[in-house]
């Protein structure tokens, strides 16, 4: 009997039938489309992939895919994904987060996930606002953006996630824009392929609480030069660009985390020897 012909999966095969809670026009729809497109491009199957998230608008993504999903607690997507990937290295693990979940409550895990360099693709949908709780400033919000919680603005300097990622040891740093799902998909696919911890910051407008972000589509532009493997050069570029420079900005060659499981060399009973009298 002939084996059935393998039909390549398409983006729609990675989508679930569950309707998103997002507002009409939300950038996250396009990110979901880009993720599913990337998974199809990578010729993966839904059961080989796990999408892990925390809490927030962005973090609703796992259930909207047909992959395995883990929708955990606020800020802890990276630890959950780290545990999963280290324990089950053969799975492809994507982590979805937002600027509140990833840079504020989960900030410490961001640093250490970059350092640890586990083979994960970390996709952060950055809209400079807490959307799910209806419009509070996040770490990437401009200092003068006025809100009920911080009238007149926070007066705080914005967090710079790409520089932080680079300084902390991320092996791949990119900026994408949700308004360009094909470009986004290509960057996500490249992030998944690249060994180690790959960080993709996606500018994903919040049309409800930050309607002015609709103008991002006119501000973004492709990165003028190819990605570098020199962190110092990448840092200089990221520090001095206008924040709308889209593309892969850094590709490192640091070996990924190697602490995963190895073949057993002893049985449980062997371990008893250390106690026996």
């Amino acid at each position, binding site marked *: 009997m002939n084996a059935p012909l393998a039909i390549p999966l398409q983006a729609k095969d990675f989508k679930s039938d569950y309707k998103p809670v997002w507002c009409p026009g939300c950038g996250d729809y396009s990110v979901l489309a880009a993720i599913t497109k990337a998974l199809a491009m990578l010729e993966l199957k*839904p059961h080989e992939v796990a999408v*892990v998230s925390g809490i927030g608008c962005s973090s609703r993504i796992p259930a909207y895919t047909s992959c*395995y999903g883990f*929708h955990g607690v606020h800020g802890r997507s990276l630890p959950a994904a780290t*545990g999963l990937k*280290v324990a089950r290295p053969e799975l492809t693990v994507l982590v979805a987060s937002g600027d509140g979940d990833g840079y504020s409550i989960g900030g410490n895990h961001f640093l250490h996930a970059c350092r640890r360099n586990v083979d994960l693709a970390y996709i952060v949908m950055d809209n400079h606002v807490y959307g799910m709780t209806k419009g509070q400033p996040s770490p990437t919000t401009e200092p003068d953006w006025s809100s009920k919680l911080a009238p007149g603005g926070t007066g705080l300097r914005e967090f710079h996630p790409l520089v932080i990622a680079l300084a902390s040891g991320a092996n791949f740093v990119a900026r994408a824009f949700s308004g360009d799902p094909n470009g986004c998909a290509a960057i996500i696919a490249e992030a998944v392929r690249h060994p180690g911890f790959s960080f993709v910051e996606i500018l994903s407008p919040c049309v409800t609480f930050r309607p002015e972000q609709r103008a991002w589509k006119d501000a973004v532009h492709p990165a003028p030069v190819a990605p570098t493997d020199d962190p110092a050069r990448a840092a200089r570029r990221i520090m001095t660009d206008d924040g709308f420079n889209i593309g892969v900005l850094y590709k490192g060659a640091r070996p990924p985390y190697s*602490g995963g499981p190895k073949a057993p060399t002893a049985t449980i009973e062997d371990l008893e020897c250390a106690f026996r009298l």
Partner: protein
Amino acid sequence: MTAGNILLEAAAAAGYYALMTRTSGPQIRGGEAAAMLRISTYATDGQDDRFQVLAAIDWQNVQRFASELPLGAESLIVGDPAQGEPPEVFTKSGARYLPLALKALAAQVPGGWPNMVALGALAGLVGLPHEAVEAALRKWMKKGLDGAIAAARLGRSQIQPDTGFRLQGPATGEKRWLITGNEAAGYGALRGGVRFVAAYPITPATELLEWLSPALAKVGGTLVQAEDELASINMALGASFGGVPALTATSGPGLSLMIEALGLGVAAEVPLVVVDVMRTGPSTGIATKSEQADLDIALHGLHGDAPHIVVAPNSIADCVAATEWAVGLAESLQVPAIVLSDQYFGQARAVVDVPPMNQSKKSRQIAGPDGKAYRRYAITPSGVSPMAIPGTAGTEYTADGLEHNERGLPSSQAGDHLAQMEKRARKVAQLDPGDAWASVEGEGETAVLTFGSCTGPAREALAREGCRAKLISMRLLAPAQPERLKRALQGVRRVIVVEQNHSGQFLRYLRSQYELPAEVRSLRRPGPLPFRPEEIHREVVKP
């Protein structure tokens, strides 16, 4: 501390049971410390009422833990006169003083140290053969072995042949281990099938994690050092979601940080074990000393209605079985289990009889594709629904801390919330622990009701004269077992609840979940002082 460990090894090598606990000041390394040993011809899980011999290398800062070193009129104080007279806090007991020039004697031996002279003297006092001491020295001393052996011989030569402290001949026969509670818990975890551990260092749980790190590697598992306890528990949840039984270990401050994720384990039905090696709280408390004061947070700390499992080992050896049991319960019921050990168990090193091993392995029900749409949280009579493992085609689902429907999709509907709440409550309530729920020993109209490390002293108290009473030491703290306790309390008129915390957390819990006889007494105090058998004995024989 080194001399204490060597004496412990020597006693073990000579065929005795022995137990060593330790205490120290707040220093990171060095400074004042005491090794507290009990050497006996029978197995024991606690210290006696008093120490028979106190040997001091010097008396510096000894007041800091003098209260942990009770002496009596029959005790002996061995000290170096060059270090001054024994402090009044010890001599007021009426203990005899035996001056021994430890430092001067050590100086007579090339490479000799005062602690090795003291070691030899103590071994001579209790009648441990020199061969056993030498064997232990060979095991412990990486360098300076000759000096140590010579110093120990010299110390022994200073002791009169019959001092009244000689032990009877050792009992032989039983297979024994020399083990700490932390090692035992680690070993139990591996026996239960744990193959992923995420760890953040914290006293007094660190040694458990340090033991597990190489042990896990040998059996094909993994340990990841996390950036904090929030990360450790979430890493463990991630690994367990991936189908690998997972554990983390911590103490009170870390458990506080882990509570939110424990709730996630409950809601998303992800098996997980957290070992809490309790220390004195609240806040940083006394990091190096024991207390049973995390019972409240372990039972009730989670927000929402969050049924989960709390197990408490009741001896050093039981840290193996209780932890293995907790892993099996967590895996088979897909729920987090907390193991309440404590610093006393965790850091005590003892000769124990090899504990009976769990024979029936309980494991996770795994879902396989059956052609129908997979319902991860299907409502079942037992409350347990088969769990799919990522990598399996046809059973993809999202594990969610959001309330969900049977498929696992987020739902804010009242009906789904009620059905899932009842499912989660049912699977835990239906747990059948058999006899493992408690150690029930002896008979009497009085019962001592306790848990954890108070069990050893209680057992010893009840074995003493004039003490006809029942011992009930609970191993399964949640879910509560009111029917089982009711049966165990048949014919009991009076209950004495023994616990090591200030507010009586165990008694409050018992009152809320169990029917108790009319007469209930509470014997409790906070850490760090462990209960001594005579205190419990006194309470039991009191009319």
